[in-house]
């Protein structure tokens, strides 16, 4: 029974790792985000290879939960980290997006006023050169 679970978890983590590598190679996933995914895949893979030893055994002993539950719990923990990381990134992007929109609007207004009033001579000549 345990060996079946081991194989399933192992294959899943290898697929996850392969997809992550492939996306990095194609530059469709930035390394910044990839690191957490690689780490998640790596940890789950280690757990599937040595269920009786190492971390998993330690984890099973201190928490008293079964092997599969432990793997799921750990995977869930990493997913939480990833989602949290995304919230931080989205907040940053939202604020940068807002600043871009404001600067764009201010520049557009400035440009329209320049067009209406004609460019100042000094600037106009420098453009011609």
């Amino acid at each position: 029974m345990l060996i079946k679970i081991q194989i399933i978890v192992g294959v899943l983590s290898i697929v996850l790792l392969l997809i992550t590598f492939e996306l990095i190679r194609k530059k469709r996933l930035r390394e910044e985000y990839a690191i957490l995914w690689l780490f998640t895949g790596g940890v789950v893979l280690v757990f599937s290879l040595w269920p009786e030893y190492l971390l998993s055994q330690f984890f099973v002993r201190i928490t008293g939960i079964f092997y599969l539950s432990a793997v799921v719990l750990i995977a869930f923990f990493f997913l939480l980290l990833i989602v949290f990381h995304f919230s931080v990134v989205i907040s940053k992007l939202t604020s940068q997006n807002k600043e871009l929109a404001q600067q764009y609007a201010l520049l557009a207004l400035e440009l329209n006023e320049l067009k209406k009033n004609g460019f100042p001579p000094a600037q106009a000549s420098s453009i011609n050169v």
Partner: protein
Amino acid sequence: MEFMKKILVIIPAYNEEGSVGKVAEEVYTHLSQAEVLVVNDGSTDLTSEIAKSKGAIVLDLPFNLGIGGAMQAGYQYAKEKGYDIAIQVDADGQHDPKEIGKLLKALEEKKIDMAIGSRFIGDSEYKSSIMRRIGIAIFSGVISMIVRQKITDPTSGFRASNRKAIQLFASDYPQDYPEPEVVILLHQCHLKMGEVPVGMSERYSGESSITKIKSIYYMIKVLLAIFVDCFKKPPLLEQER
């Protein structure tokens, strides 16, 4: 006229074609020395065109940023163009441009950095629902306690700010519920504020966007935002000159 202060009236507008023109016109009649900047927050109607036709400067945001982002863009314009005083007036017509003089006077005489037009000081005849009154009373109590100064109308968007406050707002302006949050921000930055009694009329168009059940939800969200604000690191004021 060296001593004349440069005044900018900022009107944030999102789909307010029905009232923005009238508000801009009234500002020009009551405050001829001021410039009017309408910040068009990604409107899909004729807000921008109507404002332009009334002679206002129009700052067209490429998409809707919400009131916080729009107001901040207005303050950025005021900072860049060297205005001494910026006044914010709602586009829906509930603020009477005739009352701007009172805000300017308070800014000058009380030596404060921001003057807030309050509906609830003095002989107020402002009518509103009980729910709304209770909500505002709670806000007022909480905010007054935090800033250790009586603020009767923290949700009022009828305000005048001096150069110091303009510079602060250009770089840091709360995005979610800017009116009450700005009061906290000013307190954290040790800028002074004061209230002035003003009359406000009912909106020209439409109901208040806040209905009964939503108002409780709104209150909780604002109180939460205020609570979080208290733990934020206050921004550093940049020095000019």
